[in-house]
């Protein structure tokens, strides 16, 4: 059991990709099953690295790591799918791209891409 976790929210598109990555049985359901997410498990060491790299990040009373840049969360989702993993290795892969994510985070207050909905 890992010490900390990060929620990765899933819309329909992401849900499919998570299932295709063989992580379907890890999906959690909230709000009468309407909100779907996966929890990425994070070790103490990795949690400290995340908090060190991103100054807005913090942990809440549930031991969830929150308030990381949106770019971090997007990348985390991509790494979960790429690595087919909900463990530390996905987060470490994100941390390898810290510089790039920080660049995006700095621009986040100027521009965030809007989702395409119908």
């Amino acid at each position, binding site marked *: 059991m890992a010490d900390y976790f990060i929620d990765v929210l899933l819309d329909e598109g992401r849900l499919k990709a998570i299932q295709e990555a063989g992580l379907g049985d890890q999906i959690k359901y909230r709000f009468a099953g309407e909100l779907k997410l996966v929890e990425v498990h994070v070790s103490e060491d990795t949690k400290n690295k995340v908090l060190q790299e991103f100054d807005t990040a913090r942990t809440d009373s549930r031991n969830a790591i929150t*308030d990381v840049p949106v770019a971090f969360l997007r990348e985390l989702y991509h790494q979960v799918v790429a690595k087919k993993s909900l463990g530390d290795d996905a987060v470490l892969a994100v941390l390898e791209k810290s510089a790039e994510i920080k660049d995006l985070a700095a621009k986040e*207050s100027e521009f965030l891409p809007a989702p395409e*909905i119908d």
Partner: protein
Amino acid sequence: MSRFLIKRPLPHGGRLVERVVRDPERAKKMIKGCPTYDIKPTLHYESEVPVRNVYREIMSICYGFFSPVEGSMSQAEVERILKERRLLNEWIFPYPLVFDISKEDFKKLGVGSGDRLVLNLKGKPFAILDIEEVWEISDTEELADKTFGTPEDNPEVVREKFNKKHPGWVIYKSLNPIVLAGKYTIINEPIFRPPFDRFWYPPRKAREEFDKRGWRTVINHQTRNVPHVGHEFLMKNAAFTGDLEPCHGILVNAIIGVKRRGDYPDEAIVEGHEAVNTGGYIKNSRHLPTICLWDMRYGNPLESLLHGIIRQNMGCTHHMFGRDHAAVGEYYDKWSTQILWNEGIPSFGFPAPPTDVPYGLEIRPQNMREFSFCPTCKEMAYSETCGHEREKLSGSFLRGMVAQGVQPPSIIMRPEVFKVVVKWWKHFNYPFCNEKYVINKEKELEVDLKDL
């Protein structure tokens, strides 16, 4: 007729203030030969970002939202408000409202009591101020402290000394020292830009609209947020209060003014509320989203008093108040609005609730707790009736979801409302108010003016 039927209250002070001249020829005559002054935003005393624009107060006063206030307050009136939250004509009122200018501008203008000053907005004549008194604020910090209260003077509800982290306190601290007191009159009606134009229901128009819709009882929902389903349930259920029947109408009144970074854009707030009725979650015939211009002071119980005044003036019979009503930080007890309306706050001049003192209000407070999803009841449940563990929805969780572009499930935010968020997100390239939005908004304001 049943004696339990509730009648629409008169405006606060007995009659609606309406100080708007609609005849341009008359207006031109009124301002002929008068000195003019370009309205400037109040700038933060340290960072110099805009924190208030007095034009919003002039609008709310002249269209009657703040009845019976008619203008910029005299020194005696401000002192009375700070002492017992009453105007000189006895009616209760929470905040000092003044037209303040710098000493340099005052010297340049060379005006005094008895003079008429033309106030320009965006380079066009907008209103006049008939000066009755010129006075000086000796210490704006002292004014700010007295406006919101201190833990020593107001131990019932004030928990922390106010400071520069409180946006309302900053407004008063940032005022210019010279006050020109006197009545305002709008002489050139501003035109609201879309989408604000269709939400503009000044008190007379709101009351006429209630008549048209046959609304006897109307409950107000205060908002500065895009509605999520918790808000929707609060509105629908609070409306079951009423008289013999649930309230006929739900008035949503959004406070439109200076924004803080991270707030939703005002455009998304008003259209988001509208989407609740276009989506049918609350029938259009029972639901009316509207706006009032005001730079929020975040004075929790005092702000709730202003809200009561505004909505009584608009013709509401009831007003919902929640936890941390119009609050920021932990300066006030989180239930201080409920304390005010339940028992009063003696140190603020209310030995009894504002509805139970002379020259007080008639609008009925409806103190609500919150709704959240209960997985056991399988419905949105009221915190005081459901006995299960509910799935609390925090604003930051929802904002995090929105920022990631993940469509919230419809039990959290209705798809029609989210669509509005995305529409304005595309417009501003950002889902919330960023620095650019805040600065632009204070430059553009919500209105345009024609030549007179």
